[in-house]
């Protein structure tokens, strides 16, 4: 490995990106802590919340990853008509606002849902979705797509030459190629999903069936909104950060380096494939689990889509603009950080995941309020915060690709005296297009669905689509809200597809 020889690039972009991340995560936490009147520590109920939070996050992340491995493997091995479309669609649940996804899930697994109607028709007792299993089901629904995408990327990053060599030598692909790849990809994937579930609030509460399912994030919400106890909120946010650091450390210890080496970007041909029906069955099951709830959202929202009020279209336009800006910023920041590399970047890359959206919003509010009307800055702040919150996903996609380029071509680049923008433009960018496009799409779509920060800042004139949808629900207009949700789903997927497609313009994979 030649990590020591890397062509020189400018320092300031990564420093600026790191500074923004630190400001929006630890800086906002600091702002909240600074305004706090310290007094109450953690209550017994808080400890119960911490316990529940960890247990459900471990289970959700574990199940997501375990299910994702065979599905990703099947998708990596098989070619079929509509595969690319399917992969894009499978990503959709991750991009949805919570309440939309929950209503979609309930249409399938709920009391009047497809599953229970089927069970009743067959003479069985209906099942209840609410409880710990409901929380995990919903979290798996949200995060399985992410796990599949990350692990699938791992599979696709194994050079075609390795498979050919393995076939020539009649060597076991699983042990020599796939297992080392999984050792490199799975711990990180697990970590990301664990951290997402760690800061879950609305899913856990809605699906959990009651206060048993109290998470740390809900306790933060209560502290901020109902008790106005900033000290307790800051303390709980620190607990979240501590859990994040601990988990990140464990994941880092469990991660093996990937010694795969460079390939010539040939199209992968597999010589070791048997049992197509098994793979197809796996793909079918995953698709059914993830896509049927989406279909229910579409069916529910379609009738009213033409009657949506003009304000919704204006909000949609605003959301698209914010998402575009957020995606550009997020990808630039990720690329800058990935080019820099190193331990600090790894830490920066997980911090936003552990940040409580509420604390970030409140902290940003406290930082800005003395200087400006919050509503004036609503869209800018939303863009910055969304770019930062999407950074871990983007970085996770881009950083390994950049590291691979550095390892494979760093010496060559250094010997040719390639540096700075020239090195990035000629060597790095063409080779990281695919993760770059994926990351941009993810950041754009995540920003589309965001409801956390905007709610604290926005007035009427800065309303984004998720906020408008939520306000429709608050005004009893559930049908219009369902149509707005469909619009949101469509736009998120479209933005994701355009970016993702752009990254794969010349690839036939």
């Amino acid at each position, binding site marked *: 490995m030649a990590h020591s020889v890397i062509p020189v690039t400018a320092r300031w972009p990564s420093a600026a990106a790191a500074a923004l991340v630190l400001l929006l995560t630890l800086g906002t936490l600091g702002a909240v802590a600074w305004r706090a009147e310290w007094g109450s520590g953690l209550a017994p109920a808080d400890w*119960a919340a911490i316990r529940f939070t960890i247990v459900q996050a471990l289970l959700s992340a574990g199940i997501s990853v375990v299910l994702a491995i065979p599905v990703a493997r099947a998708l990596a091995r098989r070619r079929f008509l509509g595969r690319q479309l399917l992969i894009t669609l499978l990503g959709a649940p991750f991009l949805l606002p919570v309440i939309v996804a929950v209503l979609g899930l309930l249409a399938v697994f709920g009391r*009047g849902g497809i599953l229970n109607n089927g069970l009743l028709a067959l003479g069985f007792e209906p099942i209840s979705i609410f409880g710990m299993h409901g929380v995990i089901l919903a979290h798996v629904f949200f995060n399985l797509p992410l796990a599949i995408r990350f692990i699938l990327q791992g599979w696709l990053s194994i050079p075609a030459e390795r498979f050919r060599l393995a076939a020539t030598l009649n060597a076991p692909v699983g042990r020599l190629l796939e297992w080392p790849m999984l050792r490199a990809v799975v711990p990180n994937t697990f970590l990301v999903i664990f951290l997402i579930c760690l800061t879950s*609030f609305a899913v856990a509460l*809605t699906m959990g069936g009651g206060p048993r399912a109290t998470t740390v994030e*809900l306790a933060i919400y209560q502290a901020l909104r*109902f008790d106005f106890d900033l000290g307790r909120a800051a303390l709980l946010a620190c607990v979240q950060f501590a859990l994040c650091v601990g988990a990140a450390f464990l994941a880092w210890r469990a991660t093996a380096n990937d010694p795969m080496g460079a390939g010539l970007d040939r199209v992968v041909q597999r010589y070791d494939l048997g049992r197509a029906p098994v793979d197809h069955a796996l793909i079918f099951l995953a698709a059914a689990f993830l896509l049927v709830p989406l279909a229910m959202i579409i069916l529910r929202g379609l009738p009213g889509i033409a009657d949506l009020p003009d304000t919704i279209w204006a909000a949609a336009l605003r959301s698209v603009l914010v998402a575009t800006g957020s995606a550009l910023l997020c990808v630039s920041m990720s690329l800058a950080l990935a080019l820099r590399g190193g331990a600090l970047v790894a830490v920066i890359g997980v911090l936003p995941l552990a940040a409580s959206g509420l604390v970030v919003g409140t902290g940003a509010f406290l930082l800005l309020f003395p200087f400006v*009307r919050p509503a004036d800055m609503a869209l800018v702040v939303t863009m910055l915060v969304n770019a930062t919150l999407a950074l871990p996903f983007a970085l996770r996609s881009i950083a390994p690709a950049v590291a691979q380029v550095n390892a494979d071509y760093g010496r060559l680049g250094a010997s040719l005296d390639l540096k700075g923008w020239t090195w990035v433009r000629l060597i790095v960018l063409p080779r990281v297009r695919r993760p770059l496009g994926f990351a941009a799409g993810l950041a754009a779509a995540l920003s589309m669905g965001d409801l956390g920060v905007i709610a604290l800042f926005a007035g009427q004139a800065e309303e984004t689509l998720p906020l408008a949808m939520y306000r429709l629900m608050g005004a009893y*207009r559930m049908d219009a809200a369902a149509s707005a949700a469909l619009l949101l789903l469509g736009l998120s997927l479209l933005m994701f597809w355009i970016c993702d497609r752009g990254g794969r313009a010349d690839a036939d994979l």
Partner: protein
Amino acid sequence: MKNTTYLPVVAGLALCATGAMAETPVLQVMTYDSFVTEWGPGPAVEAAFEAECACDLQFVGAGDGAALLARLQLEGPRTEADVVLGLDTNLMAAARETGLFAPHGVEADLDLPIAWTDTEFLPFDWGYFAFVGNAGADAPASLQALADSDIKVVIQDPRSSTPGLGLLMWVKTAYGDDAANLWVDLEDNIVTVTPGWSEAYGMFLEGEADAVLSYTTSPAYHLIAEEDDSKVAWGFDEGHYMQVEVAGKLAGTDQPELADQFMAFMVSEGFQSVIPTTNWMYPAVTPAGGLPDGFETLITPETSLLLSPEDAAAKRDAALDEWRTALSQ
């Protein structure tokens, strides 16, 4: 390090903060989100008040009632708002404690089922909490009957939602020391607890539960706006806990006369007549033309329950513990 990251932010803010100097005075009213949407009372109230005040009435929306109070606490004495509209009696004690409010000075003949004497906060509408179910289905006649039945309901979390907190106070007021037992009985009726009203109501309409915690006035929305009479509120023998929504004038306002004028306007015809079919609550002063057609079909509880703001604040934490313990078993 800190200064270098901070400076560009401040510079950016200075650029954006080019507030236009307006000649007409501006009155800022901070309120909850659903008040200001195009379906809420906001637009009609704004038009009616601006017609008589020669001013610019601006609404600032901030989440729900609890978020509104948190926003005010975050902004503190520096807030630009002149009036805060949308708190309820459960939040009033904490709001009073901020010391940011001034006496409203309005003498109004309020049509509330209870006497109102507060000098800082003035009601603009009110309603009763109630479980809303489907017409024709089994309707329990009391909280206890509901708890003893196998009817399924969705409620909101008292830690994140004002109706959720309302139910907590309802049970506490009706049952006192036995409240914990009622919650234990109710536990198997509760399908789930949602973070806010919208999620719960949405789940009820999608058929996830037989009923949802909402207001006695909710069926009026379906009847008047959708011509759908299939939703009914259940009247309970214990009586119904009330939500009284109030507004207050901020002591630090730079438009004291306008703020006074708005507070007086708030209990006048122009404001009150839009409340029933936009906020779907009872107006604090019944308009001259009476309530809109359809409101006469709503149930009217015989007993109105309401804790004083101070009692509500004092009892909240213990009631919350009871609730959490009972539902965690």
